[in-house]
Every structure is written in structure tokens, then in C-alpha cells.
């Protein structure tokens, strides 16, 4: 009798400690990812034809010292690209995972469901047809991404929006936009076409200061907001009926989260062009690292940042010829898909 009474509290205690342990695991892994991202952020500014030490970078970035030559190299030359990579990575990582959760598909990513394609068509049109400045191109990309998302949302609407219809309509729209982009590229003169094709690959190197500032401000607002809304995201994942029963206004919440993710992607694309695969891969990697218990949004953001920073280092310093960042992130995509094929197939799960 006494034993019977004692048994439940014991198991309760173990679950509780287990949960605490998992939560600690999530926190530790997320923290580590953040540290790695920051280390890469600093490292990006150290490498180059004018090597700078860690302390010089940190001191110069946070305005603790004033050595004119170091300040020039770090603040004026390297800081913009490094912070672009960091910010774009954070934005793509978060929004990719939000997309995957809302659309309930681990392969869903804003790169493929027409949003980047909208940004690309708008940017390429403004480069080729209007011949305007970089700031205007970014603005056009932003508007293009937002318009494309709205169009997809409306076309996918039929008593609400389901994940699979949004994805498929998005892919259809994407094909349409890509063929129009191809048409513009084919009729442009070679120099404009080259500029447009460079933009289409995506690179963190040529971001303008105003665009970057906008992305940083928006990120500072939307990233915490997404983390706060994360609870609803997890409820939405349980399915619409369950979410309703738990008191979540499903359609409103989905629209809000989708809107946040779209804005983040649109800004990231406006700043750096459509860097492929970051948004697709960051989420799954983060989830794999922290396990199924945590939400992984912050971890996904850090993984995204790590990816873009690493890709930037590889593209600029490790390859024989410096290439746009997007080539490297794109090249990661194919092995990732094959890896997915190998591992997930064996485990007999996957989406």
C-alpha cells in the first residue's frame, strides 16, 4: 500500500527533472549556436587582405577604440557585409521555420513558394526596364515579395487557407514569375542582364546602408514578437480543430505569423537577393540539434546566421575565385536533399 502511494510521485519527479533537463539542453544548444554565430560574425571581419585581431574588431565595432586604419577596414569595409550576413541569416532562419510550421511541411520554404520569385521579378524589372539605383531595386524587391505573397494567399483561399494549397499555388505562381523573369533577362542587353543575374544569385556583399538599417530595425521588432507568438505556432501545429478548441483564433493567427515571416523574407531578399536554401535548411537543422521539445525558433535564427556567415567566408576567401554568397548556399542545397533522402528514409519518418 505504502509502496503504491510512493510510486507515482517518484515517476512524476523523474518526468519533471527530465523536462527540466530537456529545457536546459535546449537553452544550452541555443546559447552555443548564438555564440558560434557571434564568433563567425567577428571572424568575418578579421579575415581579408588586411588581417585584424579579435580585440581590434570587437573594440572597433563597439566604438571602444579609435585606430583610424583599423576603424576604416572594420567599420567601413567589413562591418556592413558582416552585419548583412548576420541579419539576413537570422531573418531567413526564423521565417523558414515559421513557414514550415504553419504550412505543416518540412520542405516548405519561402524560396520555392513564390515569394522570392516575386521579389526577383520586381527587382529584375527595375534593373532592366527602369535602370534605377540599388536602393530602388531593394524597394521593388520588397514590394514584389509582398504582392506575390498576397496574391498567393488570395488564390489559395477557399474557406480558409490550407498549407498544401498555399504551397502548390505558390509553386504555380513561382513558375509564372520565373518565366517572366527569364523573358526580361533574354530581352535585356548583356550588361543589364549580367547585373540582374548577379542580383538573382544573391550576395551579402553589395547591400546598401539604408536597406540594412531597415532590416535591422524590423528584425529587432519582429524577432522578439515571433518568439512571443511561438506558443500559438505550436498550437497551430496540432491542427485547426485542436487549435480552435484551445482558444486560438486560427485564421487570424496564421495570417499574422505568415505576415511576419513574409516581411522578414521580403526584407532579407531586398537586402541580399534571394539567397537559396537558407530558409529551407535552418529550421530542420535547429530542430534536429535541440530535439523535438523546444520550439527552436531562436535556434533556427542562429543556424540561419551561421549558414550565411559561413557561406560568405567560403565564397569570399576559400574559393579560388570570389563568388556571390548565393552560389555557396545553393550548392549546399543539393547535398542537403540527398542527406535528407538517406537519413530520413532510413528512419522511416519525414514529411
Amino acid at each position, binding site marked *: 500500500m505504502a509502496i503504491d502511494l510512493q510510486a507515482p510521485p517518484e515517476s512524476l519527479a523523474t518526468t519533471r527533472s527530465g523536462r527540466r533537463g530537456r529545457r536546459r539542453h535546449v537553452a544550452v544548444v541555443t546559447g552555443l549556436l548564438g555564440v558560434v554565430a557571434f564568433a563567425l560574425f567577428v571572424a568575418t571581419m578579421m579575415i581579408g587582405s588586411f588581417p585584424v585581431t579579435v580585440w581590434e574588431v570587437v573594440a572597433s565595432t563597439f566604438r571602444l577604440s579609435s585606430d583610424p586604419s583599423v576603424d576604416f577596414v572594420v567599420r567601413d569595409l567589413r562591418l556592413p557585409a558582416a552585419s548583412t550576413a548576420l541579419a539576413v541569416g537570422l531573418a531567413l532562419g526564423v521565417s523558414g521555420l515559421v513557414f514550415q510550421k504553419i504550412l505543416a511541411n518540412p*520542405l516548405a520554404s519561402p524560396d520555392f513558394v513564390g515569394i522570392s520569385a516575386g521579389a526577383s521579378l520586381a527587382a529584375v524589372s527595375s534593373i532592366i526596364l527602369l535602370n534605377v539605383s540599388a536602393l530602388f531595386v531593394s524597394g521593388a524587391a520588397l514590394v514584389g515579395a509582398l504582392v506575390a505573397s498576397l496574391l498567393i494567399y488570395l488564390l489559395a483561399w477557399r474557406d480558409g487557407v490550407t498549407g498544401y494549397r498555399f504551397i*502548390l499555388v505558390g509553386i*504555380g505562381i513561382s513558375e*509564372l514569375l520565373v*518565366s517572366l523573369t527569364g523573358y526580361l533577362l533574354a530581352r535585356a542587353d548583356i550588361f543589364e542582364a549580367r547585373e540582374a543575374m548577379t542580383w538573382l544569385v544573391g550576395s551579402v556583399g553589395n547591400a546598401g546602408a539604408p536597406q540594412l538599417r531597415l532590416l535591422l530595425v524590423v528584425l529587432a521588432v519582429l524577432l522578439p514578437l515571433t518568439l512571443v507568438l511561438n506558443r500559438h505556432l505550436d498550437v497551430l501545429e496540432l491542427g485547426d480543430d485542436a487549435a480552435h478548441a484551445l482558444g486560438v483564433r486560427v485564421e487570424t493567427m496564421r495570417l499574422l505569423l505568415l505576415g511576419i515571416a513574409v516581411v522578414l523574407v521580403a526584407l532579407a531578399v531586398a537586402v541580399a537577393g534571394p539567397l537559396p536554401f537558407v530558409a529551407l535548411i535552418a529550421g530542420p537543422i535547429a530542430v534536429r540539434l535541440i530535439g523535438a521539445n523546444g520550439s527552436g525558433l531562436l535556434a533556427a535564427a542562429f543556424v540561419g546566421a551561421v549558414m550565411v556567415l559561413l557561406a560568405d567566408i567560403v565564397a569570399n576567401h576559400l574559393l579560388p575565385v570570389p563568388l556571390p554568397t548565393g552560389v555557396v548556399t*545553393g550548392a549546399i542545397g*543539393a547535398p542537403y536533399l540527398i542527406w535528407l533522402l538517406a537519413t530520413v528514409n532510413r528512419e522511416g519518418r519525414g514529411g
Partner: protein
Amino acid sequence: MTLTHVRSTGSSTAPEHRHGGGLAVGLLVLLGVLALMCFVSVTLGTRDVGLGTIWKALVEPDPTRTDVTVIRELRVPRTIVGLLAGLALGLGGTLLQGLTRNPLADPGIMGINAGAASFIVVAIMLFGIQDLSTSIWFGFLGAAAATFVVYGVASMGREGATPVKLALAGAAVTAGLTSVTTGIVMSNVDALNQLRFWQVGSLAGRYWPVVEQTAPFIVVGSLVALLAGRALNGLALGDDMAVALGQRVRLTRTVLFGLVAVLAGAATAACGPIVFVGLVVPHVARAICGPDYRWVLPYSALLSPIILLGADVLARISAGDGELQVGVVLGVLGAPAFIALVRRRNLAEL
């Protein structure tokens, strides 16, 4: 729903033959339409050439006249390339939809054309292969690799290759390949210039060499594909039923996927990556002749070149001074059809 289904299959056995006769007449009509489309494609163009001259150019050519050269060296091969590519894409799409039992399967959407395209570009850029007779093999290889990866990734998980997963995996593969291809080509302005024309999918500038190199593969591939009706009908019943009917499912699938790679690879080598033809054509065919693949295949084989040549003619009429590529026309016209299919309530019904 089930009741009507049972009734329709039950009653379809008796008037099968009469129905079959009607369908055969339908095929003849389509053949006539196709011939008309070829005629239009040869007669229409920026240079105004009279019908008499065209006839003469075909029957007793006079190589010194420009009109004759335009007809014989430009328009006729262009039309034949359209014919061949249409055949390959339509049959490739039908095979894919049957194989994956997926209404949204298409060599373009699934990234198979993109696989062929990027391998061909790599062959030209990295290995300096200029003649199509070698680079077409890279096209086959790329198409096969893309098919393998896309279908493999998409069929993971319990519910198998759903339309969404196939389309997403195809889009992912396409995106990865495109950025890598552009990256390789980036440093070389000439290659970049070639790539941008090649990426859209066009029948312009396709002359006799293209016809000669791709025709054998497409003709043989199409003949084999036309014989696959019974096998596809078996697969449509589900793997278990197909096995029970004595089909070797795995072998059939492998052979037919290989056939898709050959058809899509050759079509892409001929005119660049073209989307949506292989998607829409089988649906039109099924709307005419029902789900029996022994009819769907020949109907697709005729409908698809009609659509491709029609789109090319439309592109030539509407372009005015510049060049509008057939791939663009098909992208713009095909997307609404695709979205309409997606919005249909009973999507997963193949």
C-alpha cells in the same frame, strides 16, 4: 460518390467498342489539327513568304533564294523541333502522372527539365563540349539524377509521394541547380549570355542539327511510351493490385522512369526547360477519353505538340519586333491552369 463511380465503371463495359470507335475518330481529328498547326507554323513568320513559294521550297528547292532558305533551314526545322519536344514533354508528363499517381506531376514542375538543363550547361562550360550529340547524354544523365532525387525525397514518409511533396522537392532541386549553374557561368560573360536565352525555353534558332541529334531518342522513346498504356493502367490500381495482376511493379517503374528521363532530357536538349505542357496535356486528354492510359497516351502525344506549336505561333504573332519565347508563353498560360487544378476539391484522385 462511390455509387456513381461504380455505376460508371459498370456501364462502361458494354459500349466500350462504340466509345473506342469515337475515340479513334477523335485521334484522327487531332492529327488533322496537328497538321494544320504545322502548316501555320511553317507559313507564319516575320518574313512574308507566299504559299506558292513555300510549296516550291519544299518540293523543288532553289538554294540561291533567301525565301527558300528561310523556309527550309529555319521554319521547317523549328516546326519539327516543336513537334518532337511537344511529343516528348506530353508523353513524359503522362508517364509521370501515371507512375506517381499524382495529378500535378510534370517534368518541368518536378525539376527534371532543370536537371537536364544544368547538366548540359555544365557539360558546355566545364568540359567544353559544344556538339549536341555528346551534350545530350549529359541531358539524359541530369534528367535521370533529378528524377531520382526528386522522387526519392518526395516518397519519404508514410503517405508516399504526395503532390505537395513532389512539387516542393522539384522546386528545391530546380532552385539549387539554377543557382549552381548561374554561379559556374557567372565569371564568363559569353556563357552567361548563352545561358539567359537557353533558360527560358525557346524554339528559336533550332536548326537541322538539333533535329538530327534529338529525333532518334524522342521517336524511339515515344514509341515505347505509347506501348506503356497497359502497364500504367496496372499501376493506377495500386501496387498490390498490379502485383496481383502479374506485373513486375519495380521493373516497370524503373523502366518507365528511365523513359521519362530520356524524353525529358532530349526535349530539354532540343529547346531548353519548358514547364506546364506535360502537366496540362494529360488532364485535357483524360477529360476527352477517360482514365484508360491506352487512350490517354496517344491523345497526349497529339495534343502536346499542338499546344507547343500553338504557343510558339502565338509568341511569334504577339512579339512584334522582339522575340517572345515559347517557354514564357507556356509559363504565363500554364500557371492559371495549374492553380485551377490545385483549387479543385478532389485533387488527389489519380
